[in-house]
């Protein structure tokens, strides 16, 4: 699948989701078309309950669409399968495992790591986990149980678990929501560095418009439930971006424009209906 030189990674064709099934179910996502190119960094913003997490669950194939089809490149016979890393909105850490073991989980499950897990690599994997925990400032809590963590610490553990197996597709559902401004900006930097270095395809769900504009190469704005994509625009700021960018006039203009899109969606909806 190639188009204009960029390789398509994933295509949504009329994908809609109704929870609970039937006519009296909750329509979360209106039939939606969306194309994701390889190496895209897409931010998904929109009001609460508009179906952002639903889209991530569709992309990670945890949820099957009610209508429409999803195509992935790399699913053809003989293609190397891509790895998925997802940080769920609720941290969903396994309570019977320590922080370190939680982060190590994908290495036990995902190829090619799992084949080598039992053999020689366990110590090596452990060092790798510890290096990542060090980076997010959790190394002192590696042996703690999940319930001994604060909300922000759980979120960081969750983020590590999504990153540890170097996924080709990275799905982040409000990964920085419970963090203070400084930790958050540090992790923005970490995420951007990682993206520049390895170029995974990323979908980032966030309520923070500055976060979306600072990190993403493309931003999709969604309408209130049932969700639709009402705006899809590229973010052109050169990389690597520095945190001072957020004070520049172009950046502020972009954030304000996005803000307008979200606030004004109810009107557009009325116009659509009419």
């Amino acid at each position, binding site marked *: 699948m190639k188009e204009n030189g960029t390789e398509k990674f994933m295509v949504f064709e009329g994908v809609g989701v109704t929870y609970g099934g039937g006519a009296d179910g909750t329509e979360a996502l209106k039939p939606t078309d969306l194309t994701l190119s390889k190496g895209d960094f897409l931010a998904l913003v929109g009001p609460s309950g508009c179906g952002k997490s639903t889209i991530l669950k569709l992309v990670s*194939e945890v949820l099957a669409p009610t209508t429409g089809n999803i195509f992935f490149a790399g699913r053809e016979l003989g293609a190397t399968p891509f790895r998925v890393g997802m940080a769920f909105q609720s941290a969903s850490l396994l309570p019977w495992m320590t922080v370190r073991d939680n982060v190590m989980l994908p290495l036990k499950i995902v190829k090619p790591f799992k084949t080598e897990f039992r053999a020689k690599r366990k110590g090596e994997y452990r060092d790798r986990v510890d290096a990542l925990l060090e980076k997010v400032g959790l190394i002192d809590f590696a042996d703690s149980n999940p319930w001994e963590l604060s909300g922000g610490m759980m979120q960081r553990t969750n983020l590590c678990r999504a990153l540890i197996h170097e996924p080709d597709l990275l799905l982040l559902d409000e990964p920085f929501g419970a963090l203070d401004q400084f930790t958050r900006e540090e992790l923005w930097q970490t995420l951007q560095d990682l993206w520049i270095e390895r170029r995974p395809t990323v979908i980032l769900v966030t309520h923070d418009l500055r976060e979306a504009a600072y990190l993403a190469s493309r931003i999709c704005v969604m309408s209130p439930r049932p969700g639709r994509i009402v705006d899809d625009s590229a973010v052109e700021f050169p990389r690597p971006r520095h945190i001072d960018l957020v004070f520049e006039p172009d950046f502020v203009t972009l954030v304000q424009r996005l803000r307008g899109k979200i606030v004004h969606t109810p009107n557009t909806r009325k116009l659509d209906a009419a």
Partner: protein
Amino acid sequence: MTQSPLRKIAPALLIISFFVLWEMACLVFGISHLVLPRPTQIVSTFFEYAPAIWPHAQQTLYTTMVGFSAGVVIGLTLGVLIGSSKLAYETAYPLLVGISSIPKVAVVPIFVLWFGAGTVPAILTAAIICIFPIVVNVATGIATVEPELEDVMRSLKATKLEILWNIGLPRSMPYFFASLKVAVTLSFVGSVIAETVASNRGVGNMMLIASSSFNVPLVFAGLMVLATMGIGFYTVFSLIERRVAGWAMRKAV
């Protein structure tokens, strides 16, 4: 977690005062040892008859352990199978609860009929009596896994077996151990009853013979042996539980 020293010794204190009260009550009211022997009498009878009690205790321990182990293996397997499938869980659960409320000792005569008196009915009774609590608990533990945790595994493209191994089984461990502690005591009940009805060996049989010859202190000594074995296993499983399923009680292991 820090506990005050009083809270730690409180259970032991309660047991000791129970026996002291018992001893004093027997002395004060002059209760005959044919009705209710004093704890000291029971203990001295135990030591007096220890060589005779030993083979019976061994037999009971043997039948109970074999039956219990078989019950655990079967119960765990059935529980995992039933809990893993929503359909199986919804279909089989009412049936299981129904069966588990049938008094299992009623089947002892049937086992005797099929296999003759002796060791086999005792083992079978011990097994069948402990299977159901284990099945019901393990199935519940696996069937009520939080969907969010399964989603984590599915986003990693884990197989059903990997999900069961990494989520279902660990999640059901607290349920499993809760049922084990009940099941092991039930197993003792099962084998002792089978021994009483149809065997010439075992603590149950010994107690039956002792009571027919009015050796009441020996009957109580038999009870003491059973209680000790029961408490022993309960303790062992509690310790394993702390290690394997301590997370459910949020105890650092």
